[in-house]
């Protein structure tokens, strides 16, 4: 029977390639046998603590071997893995824990404020595993060390019978449109999406993936599962800010795949030795990009700078889709440079109007997706679930159209549309024009309240160097956009606020504007 549970990826690879290196992190090399054993022991520990199928276990760890062992260990125990950003502020964390009512929390020192605030944890929390803290044993026993937890006996594989429909993970969206929502993904959701991705990327056990994106972000999770499922190797580097260390390690480890969001590539192009390493990355088979629209100018430069044998996959997805929905085949990228491609195997993406009717080629509507990867719903939020899931599938909130060849294009987000004067304006188009000036690292176009226009367009732009004047940029826009789409103001700033995934945080940008 085909493997149907997420943790079976690890178990199956450990059975067939026990001595293969699964993870590389900070000089540590961990084999599949070692990783699977740690995960099974953690699962054994969780069951000893009384964890039951469906119980939530919050994971507050940065990318590393312990994160991966925890993730698969929680799944092996039949529990629900809830990875959270280690840097979540205390107030938000308190709120998330309240709504999750987790049975336990696995955390590292960075999330140590939680250890000091134990009395604020919800009563559902029966234990904490502090992976790197030294602490004095207290009674009643609440806090356990990592080594202690791993002294438990391994949970026998196949213990307990879970349905593939069972909840596997809750992943929080970045909250770009209101408060973060907990996306409930079943084993089936994750397994089916993992299979589709391995298929179109042609992943094999020879693949070695460099991971700079956090595992708590859905794309990071997907990189992990796809490579563990094929018995490949995941190289974890948490130092992306030091781009030279990442590029150098890619060369040293013979990395075959690299993945990023638009800002990842903007940085690599702007300030990294990527171009000078062109001849030193003979194994780099492909790069993938998802996590939002990447300006055409960056795609073109990337194609020039990457080694000639490296394919670039432009992809599109959503947390609600267990990561992936569409991709552009690298062979057609030049021809379809502005496109997000076509649906991945097993998934359907249609363009629907407000009444749910499918639109013809070229007509603009909402992208609606269906398939085995679409989430169960939002945790504890049936109203928000009902707003995006219906008989037609998952309403992405992205607006776009399909061309005559079946390729999809995103023109913007429903909730980013700005009403300026009598016009509905999508900021993405203006951002694209500003980026094509070639003088910016990144830009965001926002609508500020305006008594006359409703909203006034303001661009926050990070210059690449030198200092392009706002007047030059405005006249660049004037030459390419109708008057009502030209920002009223362009403010040059040193940096744009971002989420840990690297995506631009529009609401924080808006607060920057005062």
């Amino acid at each position, binding site marked *: 029977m085909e493997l149907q549970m997420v943790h079976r990826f690890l178990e199956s690879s450990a059975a067939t390639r026990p001595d293969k290196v699964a993870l590389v992190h900070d000089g540590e090399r961990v084999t599949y046998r070692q990783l699977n054993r740690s995960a099974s022991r953690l699962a054994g520990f969780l069951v000893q603590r009384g964890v039951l199928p469906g119980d939530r276990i919050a994971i507050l760890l940065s990318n590393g071997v312990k994160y991966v062992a925890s993730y698969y260990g929680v799944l092996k125990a039949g529990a629900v893995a809830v990875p959270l950003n*280690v*840097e979540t502020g205390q107030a938000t964390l308190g709120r998330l824990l309240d709504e999750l009512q987790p049975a336990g929390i696995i955390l590292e020192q*960075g999330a140590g404020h939680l250890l000091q605030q134990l009395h604020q944890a919800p009563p559902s929390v029966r234990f904490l595993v502090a992976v790197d803290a030294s602490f004095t044993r207290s009674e009643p026993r609440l806090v356990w060390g990592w080594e202690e937890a791993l002294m438990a006996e391994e949970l026998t594989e196949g213990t307990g019978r879970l349905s593939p429909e069972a909840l596997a993970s809750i992943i929080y969206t970045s909250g770009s449109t209101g408060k973060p929502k907990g996306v409930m993904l079943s084993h089936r959701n994750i397994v089916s999406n993992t299979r589709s991705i391995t298929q179109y990327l042609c992943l094999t056990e020879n693949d070695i993936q460099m991971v700079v994106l956090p595992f708590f972000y859905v794309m990071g999770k997907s990189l992990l599962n796809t490579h563990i499922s094929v018995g490949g190797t995941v190289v974890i580097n*948490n*130092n*992306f*800010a*030091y*781009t*030279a*260390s990442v590029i*150098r390690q890619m060369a040293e480890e013979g990395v075959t795949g690299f993945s990023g969001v638009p*800002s990842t590539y903007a*940085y690599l192009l*702007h*300030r*990294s*030795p990527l171009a*000078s390493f062109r001849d030193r990355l003979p194994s780099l088979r492909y790069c993938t990009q998802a996590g939002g629209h990447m300006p055409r100018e960056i795609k073109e430069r990337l194609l020039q700078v990457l080694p000639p044998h490296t394919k670039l996959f432009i992809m599109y997805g959503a947390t609600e889709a267990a990561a992936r929905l569409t991709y552009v085949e690298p062979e057609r990228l030049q021809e379809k440079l502005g496109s997000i491609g076509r649906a991945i195997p097993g998934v359907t993406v249609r363009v629907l109007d407000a009444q749910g009717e499918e639109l013809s080629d070229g007509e603009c509507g909402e992208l609606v997706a269906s398939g085995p990867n679409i989430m169960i719903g939002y945790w504890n939020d049936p109203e928000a679930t009902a707003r995006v899931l219906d008989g037609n599938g998952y309403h992405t909130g992205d607006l776009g159209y399909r061309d005559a060849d079946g390729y999809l294009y995103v023109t913007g987000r429903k909730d980013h549309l700005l009403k300026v004067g009598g016009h509905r304006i999508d900021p993405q188009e203006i951002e694209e024009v500003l980026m094509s000036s070639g003088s910016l*690292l990144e830009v965001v176009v926002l609508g500020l309240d305006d008594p006359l226009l409703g909203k006034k367009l303001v661009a926050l732009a*990070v210059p690449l160097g030198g200092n392009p004047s706002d007047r030059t940029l405005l006249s660049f826009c004037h030459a390419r956009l109708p008057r009502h789409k030209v920002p009223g103001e362009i403010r040059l700033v*040193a*940096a*744009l606020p*971002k989420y840990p995934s*690297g995506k631009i945080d529009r609401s924080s940008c808006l607060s920057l504007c005062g």
Partner: protein
Amino acid sequence: MNLKDEIRNFVVENFLFGDAGGLTDDSSFIREGIVDSTGILQLVAYLQERYQVAVADEELIPENLDSVQRVADFVEGKRSGAPCAGSEG
């Protein structure tokens, strides 16, 4: 003010909003969540402008830039012409 104090001040003012609490000379900017990738670019731009040193792409590694002490040593090395980590390209 010496070089290290200036660098510390830059980090405190730009990334810690004036609150230096807990920042030591050896605090890792990245591991301790003090500076993100955008911040490293700002820091490098500052070093280039303030101390008139050139920072090559190959030198963007934690050994050169991941704490107040490392940045100070890196800039000192640049000024004295000593080879820096990563500079062989």
